[in-house]
């Protein structure tokens, strides 16, 4: 019974946090107190107050307003990267698991080579080579992100393939394409969603990390990681500049982790473990 409540609590807590984050992202322009880009050099490093709830940064910009706008960037990045990863990975996994054995061996060999690279370092290297920019950041995060999905989906397809309804689908005369997308994919979808929600946290954290290192979106753009980067120089004199973006990242990552765990427990899958 306790575990039953525990399952629900993590899921419910995640949903509450995520609804809150989604609402903030959607309503961002109406929630800000000040123009997030407006500099007020007379009022730099101001602590939290009635006018500036979370204080101002080194250029006198409202930290609260920037944080609110930053929610959009973080969630948007997370959703785009995870969707791309899941899409590419699932397709490769489906085809690899369902296709001829030789093809499967080749694809799996390539994936093993890709997985042998330390992911974080490769992502950093690629982001560094491509230079800053939103699109480049997405590319860097997608480059290796899909590999985990591919392996995972392939494994599922291999076990589903042996199930009787796939054989029956063949004897009913369905083509491979139909079997792949109408029978195999729908049965993989649940675990893919669980995996995606778990990956989301990692991607958002990695994106913030890239921004922190100056390899993300444009500097003036309100992004949590970049804000953290700016704040770190004034950690002793004006700790609020780094603290609030840090908290925002933490809450978001926590929310997605809870969602992943909650979904996994709810779906009773058990087969999804945190990978990559």
């Amino acid at each position: 019974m306790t575990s039953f409540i525990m399952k629900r609590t993590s899921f419910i807590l995640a949903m509450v946090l995520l609804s809150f984050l989604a609402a903030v992202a959607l309503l961002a322009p109406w929630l800000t107190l000040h123009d997030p880009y407006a500099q007020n050099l007379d009022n730099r490093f101001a602590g939290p107050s009635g006018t500036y709830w979370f204080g101002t940064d080194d250029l006198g910009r409202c930290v609260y307003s920037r944080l609110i706008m930053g929610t959009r960037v973080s969630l948007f990045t997370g959703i785009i990267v995870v969707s791309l990863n899941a899409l590419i990975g699932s397709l490769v996994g489906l085809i690899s698991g369902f296709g001829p054995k030789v093809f499967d061996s080749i694809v799996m060999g390539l994936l093993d080579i890709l997985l042998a690279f330390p992911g974080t370092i490769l992502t950093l290297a690629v982001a560094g080579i491509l230079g800053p920019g939103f699109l480049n950041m997405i590319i860097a995060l997608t480059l290796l992100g899909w590999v985990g999905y591919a392996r995972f989906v392939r494994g599922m397809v291999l076990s589903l393939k042996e199930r009787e309804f796939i054989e029956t689908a063949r004897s009913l005369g369905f083509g491979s394409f139909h079997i792949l997308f109408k029978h195999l994919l729908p049965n993989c979808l649940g675990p893919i969603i669980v995996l995606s929600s778990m990956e989301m946290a990692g991607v958002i954290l990695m994106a913030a990390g890239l921004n922190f290192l100056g390899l993300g979106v444009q500097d003036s753009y309100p992004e949590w990681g970049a804000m953290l980067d700016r704040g770190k120089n004034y950690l002793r004199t004006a700790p609020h500049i780094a603290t609030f973006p840090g908290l925002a990242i933490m809450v978001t990552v926590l929310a997605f982790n809870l969602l992943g765990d909650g979904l996994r427990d709810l779906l009773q899958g058990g087969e999804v473990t945190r990978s990559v």
Partner: protein
Amino acid sequence: MLEFRNVSKVFRQGWLKKAEIVAVKDISLLIKPKEIFGLMGESGSGKSTLGKLALGLLTPSAGEVLWEGKSRADLKSLPQEARLAIQGITQNPYGVFNPRYRIGYALAEPLIYHGLLQNKQERLFRIRETLKLINMEEDCLDKYPGQLSGGQVQRLALARVLLMDPRLIVADEPTTMLDLSIQAQILHLLKRIHEQTGAGILLISHDLPVVTALARRIGMMYGGRLVEVGTVQDILNNALHPYTQLFLAAAREEAFPELQNSSNNPTGCVYRGNCYRVQELCAAKSPELIPVGREHFVACHFANEVKNG
């Protein structure tokens, strides 16, 4: 008319595919139109493999499977009617439906995919008609396979196959996983379908009463070979192959055989390791099916001697 012409199926396994498992060996068999043919044998005798070869789920390693005189080796090149002419139902009815889809969609899917009934009204009409034939209520269409009982799902599996108007239904152990009263239901249903639609049935089972209740002819398999073929009367009253005799004795609970030797003899008769009639000839030469009656064939070198006493 389904014809197996010297069909063999070998599964290769292991490192460099060195290990060979001969599931079906050199089988020639003709299943006549509108006939119920019972295929019997112990587990691992190759009867299910033969069923899958008929369905086109496996391709023969040697020999040919022919439908109406045309080879089914390249199914895609056949006209749709011939391609879909043979359909099957299996042992585990729950397994054959995708758990993600409602029964209604599962039944309509093949019709939509093959363009058999594009009109939604017509399709629904056909499905309703078929449901009546199998004695199922219409509300099952909105249910998922997991919400129905084994007997219901097996009948629906049969309905899905019937909607495609098959000329031959391969029923691989259709009653094994069902309890006795439901077994009878399914068997009656198969019989009625056979009478109403004229579809032939290849009934694969290890259960003697099931096969004798339905089939007109029986084929007995052992070790991947067809050891005896005959009408139900031939087999029940006049079995000549030592394995068939043993099988019948076991089914009638007269004997509890314990076969000592594996059936994996590369040369000679598959059954010679367990046979009481065994002689030198059996190790040297594999027996062919020889006629001993009008429709009665036995793969034993001494069948005629035994028959004549």
